[in-house]
C-alpha cells in the first residue's frame, strides 16, 4: 500500500544495515568551544568504514559530565573490536590529548571494554600516574599546559551502521532543504550519529564497479544525469537525490531517527522518500519504512 506524508510518497521498502562495533567518548574542556573543537577533530575523515576505517560523529553536547565541565559526546563505529580499539587510541591520542584543557571519559556502560587510556599513558614517558575513582581508573598524563586526564577503559558494544533514507526532490535546493530539516530532527535523537558532511550524502554508492580494483561505485539508479543510460529508480520529475546515513548503538535508535527524519523531510517539492538496500545481501538489519512509521501511530 502506498503511503503519503504531506503529499510525499513513502516507498514501501527497507533500509539495509549491518552490524558494527560502537563506543561513546565524552570529551570535556574548560569551555564548550574546546570540547567541540576536539570532538570535531576526532570525528574528521570518519564518514565511511570503507575509506576511513571508522564512522564517527558528535552525538550531542553534554552537561552532566564526570568532571562537571561542559562536554561533547562522540560516537565511533568500526567493523571489528580491534579496529575500534585502534581508531579510539589513534583519534583520542591525536585529537583530544593534543587539544588544550580537554579530558576524555568513557560514555558507554558495557560489559566489554577496551584499553584506551591504558595505551595512551605511555606518552607520559614514565611520569604518568593513575587514580582510581568510583572503581574506574583514570590516567594522568603530564602535558605542557598541565595534565591530560583519560579514562583507562572504554566500553564497546555491538551496534548498527548503514541505516538510511533517500530523499528524492524535484530540484537540488528543495532536496537540500528537506535533507537539512531531516538532519536537524534526527540529531535530536540520542544514540545515533549521521557520519557524513552535515549529515548528508550526495554520492550514494552501489556494491561493485566496472573497474576490477573498485569495490563500490556511484549508485547510477539514483543519478539524475544517468536516467537515460541505466535502469533508473527515479520517478518522473525527480532531479536531485540526497541520502542520510544513520549509525546507532542499537536498532531502536536507528528506527527512532528514521521516523524523525522522514517526518521532517516531507516538504513541498519532495516527490518520494525511499531507502537504500541491496536486496538483503549486505546486512542482517532491515528497517522497513512503513513499519517504522506505523509504530509511531498511537
Amino acid at each position, binding site marked *: 500500500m502506498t503511503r503519503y506524508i504531506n503529499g510525499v510518497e513513502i516507498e514501501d521498502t527497507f533500509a539495509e544495515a549491518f552490524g558494527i562495533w560502537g563506543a561513546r567518548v565524552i570529551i570535556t574542556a574548560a569551555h564548550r568551544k574546546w570540547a567541540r573543537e576536539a570532538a570535531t577533530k576526532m570525528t574528521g575523515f570518519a564518514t565511511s568504514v570503507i575509506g576511513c576505517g571508522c564512522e564517527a560523529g558528535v552525538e550531542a553536547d553534554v552537561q552532566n559530565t*564526570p*568532571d*562537571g*565541565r561542559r562536554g561533547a559526546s562522540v560516537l565511533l563505529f568500526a567493523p571489528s573490536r580491534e579496529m575500534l580499539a585502534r581508531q579510539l587510541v589513534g583519534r583520542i591520542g591525536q585529537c583530544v590529548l593534543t587539544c588544550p584543557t580537554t*579530558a576524555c571519559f568513557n560514555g558507554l556502560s558495557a560489559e566489554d571494554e577496551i584499553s584506551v587510556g591504558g595505551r595512551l599513558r605511555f606518552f607520559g614517558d614514565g*611520569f604518568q*600516574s593513575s*587514580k*582510581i*575513582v*568510583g572503581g574506574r581508573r*583514570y590516567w*594522568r598524563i603530564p602535558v605542557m599546559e*598541565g*595534565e591530560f*586526564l583519560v579514562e583507562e577503559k572504554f566500553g564497546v558494544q555491538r551496534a548498527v551502521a548503514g541505516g538510511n533514507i533517500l530523499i528524492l526532490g524535484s530540484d537540488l535546493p528543495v532536496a537540500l532543504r528537506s535533507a537539512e530539516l531531516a538532519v536537524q530532527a534526527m540529531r535530536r535523537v540520542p544514540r545515533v550519529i549521521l557520519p557524513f558532511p552535515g549529515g548528508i550524502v550526495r554520492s550514494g554508492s552501489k556494491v561493485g564497479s566496472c573497474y576490477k580494483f573498485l569495490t563500490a561505485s556511484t549508485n547510477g539508479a539514483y543519478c539524475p544525469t544517468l536516467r537515460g543510460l541505466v535502469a533508473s529508480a527515479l520517478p518522473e520529475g525527480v532531479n536531485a537525490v540526497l541520502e542520510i546515513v544513520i549509525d546507532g548503538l542499537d536498532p531502536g535508535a536507528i528506527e527512532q531517527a528514521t521516523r524523525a527524519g522522514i517526518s521532517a523531510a516531507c516538504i513541498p517539492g519532495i516527490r518520494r522518500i525511499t531507502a537504500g538496500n541491496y536486496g538483503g545481501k549486505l546486512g542482517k538489519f532491515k528497517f522497513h519504512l512503513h513499519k517504522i512509521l506505523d509504530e509511531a501511530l498511537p
Partner: protein
Amino acid sequence: MTAATKLKLRFPPQAPLEAGVITPDHFAGKSEAEIARLPAVHGNEAASLGDFFEVKGNGSSEIILRGDLSGVKNIGAGMTHGRILVEGCAGMHLGAGMRGGEIRAFGKVGDWAGAEMAGGKIHVRGSAGHGLGGAYRGSRYGMKRGLIIVEGDAGNEIGAAMRRGLIVVTGNTGDFVGAFMIAGSIIAFGRLGIRAGAGLLRGTIVAFQPPELLPTYRYDCSYEPGFLKLIFRELRSCGLSVPKSFAAGRYLRYSGDFNRTGKGEILVYDQR
C-alpha cells in the same frame, strides 16, 4: 530484604573485647542464639558475643551496633559485603582488612581503623585515631583499595604505606600523614601535622592549609588537577559537602619525596 541484626552493648568491657566476628559474613545464615554464641576474646579470656551484647534479629547483611563500643576491637574486620552502623564510638581496628561493604560510625573511632583494608567504605562522623588506613608494623602495604571518610580529626601516620584508595579527613591530621605511601590519595581539609609525605614513593596528598613541607619536596607549578574534580564529585555523592571552589581551584604542586623517586606529590590549595 531481612531486617537488620541489632546488637546493644549491655555494659562496657573491662578489658578490650576482640570481636572480629561482628561482620555480615559471620552473621550470615545464623539465628539470634547462634550469633550470641559467636566467640570473642575478653582480655585474655574466651567469651561470646552474648556475654556483652543483647542480640536482636537473625543474621542479616546489615548490622546495627549501639552503645559505647570504644573498648570493642575489630568490628567489621575483614568483612566482604553488607553494612555496619555503629551508633556510638568504636574501638581499635574498625574495618581493618575489610574487602567490601560499608561501615558507618557515628562517634569517635580508635586507632588502625581501615588498616590494610582492600575494598569497601568506612565513613566516620567523629574523629579517628592513629594509623588510619595504614600498614601494621612490619607490613609492606597499608590500605590497598577503598574509601575512608573521617568527618573530624585523625591521628598520626594516616595512610602509612598505603598502596591504593582514598582517605579523606575533614579536620586536622597528625604527623607523618602518608609516610612511605606507595600510591593512592589522602585529602586533608584541615591542618597537616609535620613531616607529611615522608618517604612518599608515589601517590597524592592534598592539603587545604599551607603545610610545613619537608626539604625533600620541590615546587613544580600552580595548576588545576582534573582528577580532583572526579574525586570531589565522588565525595559529594557520599554526602560530603565540598565547596565548588575546591574543584575549580588551582593547586600548588610539589614533587617528592626526593629521598625516594620524587614521583609522589603534595598538592596545596592555592588560596590566592
